[in-house]
């Protein structure tokens, strides 16, 4: 594990919440979040559990990033 990865991992440990949402709940919420984010309306505190999960879960984050990028690409092609 190189230095930057160790730093990221240490930060992820220290930012751990007592309760975190599951990958299933993240999957349920992410499409609404992406649409709101694309409209600049996803800044609310109610989305913090989702954002936290996306920071902690690489697999869900990758899924989210592709969904975000693809929907933005679609919007730009309209």
């Amino acid at each position: 594990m190189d230095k930057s990865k160790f730093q990221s991992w240490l930060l992820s440990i220290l930012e751990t919440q007592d309760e975190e949402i599951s990958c299933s709940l993240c999957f349920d919420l992410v499409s609404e979040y992406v649409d709101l984010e694309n409209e600049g309306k996803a800044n609310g505190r109610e989305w913090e559990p989702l954002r936290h999960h996306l920071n902690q879960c690489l697999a869900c984050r990758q899924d989210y990033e592709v969904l975000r990028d693809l929907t933005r690409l679609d919007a730009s092609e309209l």
Partner: protein
Amino acid sequence: MGKARSNEDWLIELNASGDQQVEAIADLREILLRGSLYSLNHNLSGHTNHDQNEIVQLAEDCAQDALMAVLEHLHEFRGESKFTTWAYKFSINIALTAARRDWRKGVSLDQLQDDSEPFEWLSPEHQDTNNPDHSLLQQEVFETIRDTIRDELTERQRQVLKWMVFGEVPMDIVVQHLQTNRNTVYKMLHDARLKLKRKLLMQGYGAEEAMALFYTK
């Protein structure tokens, strides 16, 4: 890419019968293929020896699986997002899962299953040898992490942590290997992080202290 539909149009036409439903399903499949192809092109090409024809074939298979998943879950769509965004996430999830599994094809997790001590996973290169005080404190953090991993994590937590954090094994490979689901693996990692965090806090290392210790140049 098919005709423009509102969320309501999608639900009506996918639940209709005859030509209207056939056309809606064909358009949905085209959207899902776009999602899976985009996912694979951005996450598979460059990692493997697949040529574009193989990627397209895999994308077709993923789109088909995604179509089944979307139709199965159609009753759960509440209109909180655009229908196309909601549908895309199925094809992206299925395609990226396939890509992550493909990336590690041929690498057995058993090869990463050894009896090495947790401390051996942490390289000493992180220590600040130019600053003895820092070095001592960093050593204390390493020892806290090592002892917690060794003494307080369950065997399964320790193994999953080693695979995913130190071995960089994608979650989907671990899920497949353990014949479980993402929620279970995420929970194992969460519980492990929580134990490590609590131990570090007990030693006086909150985020601020630890970052000051490890983020200095």
